């Protein structure tokens, strides 16, 4: 079993398709919705998928076949260690507890595995050390 995060982008015509149901039923994938948005240009769903690696690959292929743009999120947000001053402004902003202050050495630790790619740390970082991956 492995866990991976994907950002799914839907064109407006696909918003009513029960694709998450198919992911469970046909591909035996467990998933957690981390963030969902519907806008004029379509929808966006950030999911964490848990399942057999082969099944995940098949699920992704199904989604792409349906016209869903799939973007894997291994490094949505990055921390520039040189730019970071370890102030900790991001710590209280992060809704996912993905950023923590190490009280031994007073450095800020970023847990990528907990990141839900909301981007709140990016706008709240004064020295602009937290960056969206281009």
């Amino acid at each position, binding site marked *: 079993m492995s866990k991976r995060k994907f950002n799914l982008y839907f064109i407006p015509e696909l918003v009513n398709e029960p694709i998450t149901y198919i992911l469970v039923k046909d591909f035996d994938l467990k998933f957690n919705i981390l963030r969902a948005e519907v806008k004029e240009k379509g929808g966006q769903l950030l999911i964490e998928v848990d399942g057999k690696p082969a099944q995940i690959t098949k699920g992704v292929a199904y989604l792409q076949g349906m016209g869903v743009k799939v973007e894997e999120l291994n490094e949505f947000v990055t921390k520039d260690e040189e730019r970071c001053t*370890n*102030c*900790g402004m*991001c710590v*209280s*902003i992060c809704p996912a507890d993905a950023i923590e*202050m190490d009280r031994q050495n007073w450095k800020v630790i970023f847990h990528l595995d907990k990141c839900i790619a909301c981007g709140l740390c990016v706008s709240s970082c004064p020295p602009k050390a937290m960056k969206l991956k281009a």
Partner: protein
Amino acid sequence: MLKRTYEEINAKIEKGDAVVMTAEEAIQLVESQGIEKATKEVDVVTTGTFGAMCSSGAFINFGHAEPPIRMSKVWLNDVPAYTGLAAVDAYIGATEEREGDGHEYGGAHVIESLIAGEAVHLRATGRGTDCYPRRDIDTYISLKSVNQAYMYNPRNAYQNYGVATNSSEKALFTYMGKLLPHYGNATYSSAGQLSPLLKDPQMRTIGMGTRIFLGGGIGYVAWEGTQFKTNIPYRNGVPSSSGRTLAVIGDLRGMSTEFIRALDFHGYGLSMAVGIGIPIPILDQDMMTCAARTDEEIFAPVLDYSIQSRNRKPMMEVSYAQLRSGTVELFGKKVKTSSLSSYYKAKVIAERLKKMINEKQFTLTRPAVAMPTDRSQKVLEVCSKEEVL
């Protein structure tokens, strides 16, 4: 009672015999050995802070062009610099924003670039006079090419500061960072037990002319900082709200981007993080008592930034130990805290200053003039010519 003089301490530094400790180390020593023994043992306690200090900037003298120009407008990397000075002098303010394209780049970035050794684009215009016939220039400068480039910061190193929170329905974008609605977080900005002016709360040893660590190099206290005030509440002998400040001066040459960093507060504007360290001479037991105050003993007021008035009253006081634990309790709710000043960098600065003293690169100075002991902060009222006199 033990007494020590600046001369004695400097003589020990010169001989390599001085006992120098960071404020954190001094706290541990006092806890294990007691105040009397610690006073005898330690000559100097080093402090440090690294936080947003908006009231910062640098004077630059560019040198004369051929033919010369009297610069009346100056832009550095498209950031306007103040030029109501002599022909080729300018002051670049840290919070000044670049013209044209939004708010992400400004004076603080220019200063950071100069310190990094980078080339900076200089544009200037003048009206053309008999002594200064030239009307414009477009060139590049660097710290190598200019005559003088020195930081002069009118207000740095605040002695304590309020904790910011937000009771309102919507997020606030402030100089204290993003404040989430309904007391969603609380932000603070002092190095607490490492912060220079909290370790000499009455400023017995910090005055005009005091040599300090500034931005990675050596600087000096130039004057009382703007908004300097002494009529403040105290707890355990330490100011429990914002009090004294410093105006500081130092050569940009010799500074490091490790200790000067441009900041961008989303929705508020630009600022500059400045690293300052000050050595506290342990002249007697009272100095040691102050220098060894812990985060448990230093308190800050909590302010609701949704009240947009200079008259907002503190809701409560919290200690830096509570703030640094990661959460504080406000009205029965556990609220996550964030610091805007970097405790990590404060530690690095206190260590660096200790090393400089141990390596005889830094000796202590007696203040040329003591700071005022009776200052209150005035407000600005809209009034008539007669009323103001």
